[in-house]
């Protein structure tokens, strides 16, 4: 009996959830698969489907004196496990954003360089394209008033747009955005009831989210945080409170990231890392402490995304600036 062919939809569905490494090999299976796997439409589908099924995170610990350590970790079984570790340099004078432009099939790094002596000066902006290997200067617009942000407040890349938590000199908080395709800056305002307190922007599943610190006195009362989601992108009226953490006993130091379901990954005062289950109001310890006493560092967590978008760097030796950009990419989960 002749073998019956499978419908294309079944093949595409299966391929879209294979690891990038398997897919790189699978380009040799037949001509159709090579075309499919190389197409930008499939790359996007894979980016979405694979990472949806395999949510993974990076944990970074930044030593204020020297370098930064990054660990590749998994979060599927509610515990972090080490995969790999690298150390990279971390310049303090700039904030950076990074994302994939699916129109030009290119990775871009955007660098905001601040004048350390004057916060009232708008940042100088440089954009690096991995495809061209060139840094270009981009004008920072006058109408974006909230332009101050800190390097250690990591960006969130969402909807093709880089988002930073930003503040102005009053100070009030807002979201500064950079569209990775059009290279335009914009500002997303918070509604009034959100602007007063310390805020951090995150992503929870398919929504932009923010964690608001409403602690009255950080030292005595323990921290209280509210987690908000923006149900409809760019609609300030759609901010909805998901839950709040009132934690006299937990003793949170800082929220680090939100999971797809809105659960908070946070650092405790003793530097342990926890994952807070907001439905049950319980938490699990996911990452033990390895910090010596008196050692000052900062921890952060970012999503690790596996992607098929390949870098056409060939055999040439990338220059220093390109290497810096590639480091960013590696953090995002690009395999070179």
């Amino acid at each position: 009996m002749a073998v019956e062919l499978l419908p294309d939809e079944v093949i595409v569905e299966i391929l879209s959830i294979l690891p990038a490494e398997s897919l790189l090999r699978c380009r040799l299976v037949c001509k159709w698969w090579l075309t499919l796997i190389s197409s930008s439409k499939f790359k996007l589908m894979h980016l979405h489907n694979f990472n949806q099924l395999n949510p993974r995170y990076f944990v970074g610990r930044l030593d204020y004196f020297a370098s930064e350590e990054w660990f590749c970790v998994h979060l599927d079984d509610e515990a972090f496990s080490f995969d790999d570790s690298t150390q990279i340099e971390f310049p303090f004078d700039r904030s950076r954003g990074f994302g994939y432009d699916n129109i030009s099939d290119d990775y871009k790094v955007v660098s905001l360089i601040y004048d350390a002596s004057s916060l009232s000066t708008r940042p100088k902006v440089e954009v690096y394209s991995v495809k061209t290997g060139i840094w270009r200067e981009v004008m920072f617009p006058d109408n974006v008033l909230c332009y101050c942000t800190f390097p250690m407040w990591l960006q969130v890349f969402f909807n093709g747009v880089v988002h930073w938590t930003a503040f102005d000199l009053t100070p009030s908080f807002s979201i500064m955005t950079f569209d990775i395709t059009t290279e335009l800056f914009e500002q997303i305002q918070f509604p009034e009831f959100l602007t007063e307190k310390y805020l951090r922007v995150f992503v929870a599943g398919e929504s932009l989210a923010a964690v608001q610190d409403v602690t009255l006195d950080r030292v005595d009362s323990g921290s209280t945080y509210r987690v908000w989601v923006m149900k409809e992108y760019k609609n300030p009226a759609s901010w909805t409170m998901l839950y709040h953490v009132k934690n006299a006993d937990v003793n949170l130091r800082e929220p680090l990231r939100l999971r797809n379901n809105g659960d908070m990954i946070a650092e405790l005062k003793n530097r342990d890392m926890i994952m807070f289950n907001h439905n049950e109001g319980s938490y699990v310890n996911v990452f033990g402490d390895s910090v010596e006493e008196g050692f000052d560092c900062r921890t952060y967590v970012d999503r690790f995304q596996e992607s098929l978008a390949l870098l056409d760097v060939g055999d040439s030796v990338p220059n220093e600036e390109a290497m810096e950009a590639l480091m960013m990419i590696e953090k995002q989960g690009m395999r070179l």
Partner: protein
Amino acid sequence: MSKKTLTLMSKDKQLFNIEEHLAVQSVTIRNMVKEDGASSVIPLPRVDSETLALVIEYLNRQQAPEEDEDYVKKFVDERGEIPTLLELAQAALDLDIKKLMDAACMKVADLIKDFTLEEVREALRIENDRTPEEEKAIRDEFQWAF
């Protein structure tokens, strides 16, 4: 209210009965019911009787919604053979039962991710349409991936 029953026919002409309120988990059947009441037999020309029996078993499950995800996973896990899973995926595609389709594809992906090229071709019924020379050329180009 009496429960309405539908009849599905596999490609080898076997008939299966299923209650309508369960059958409409399939978007394909739901649309047919909406259009003409689907009083007669619904033919499924690409689904063999063994696979259809599995699909019916799946549609008949009595699962609390919050345990449904785990149930689907377990359901495909217990039928871990690639050919069965592919038949199931194809039937779920034709009947438009998204959860079953996703779960079957996920299981297949998990099984084949470390396969060699030849094993992948055999599992997914793909013919190699490159000559050995062409294959070598492309293998050289992507050398770093192997």
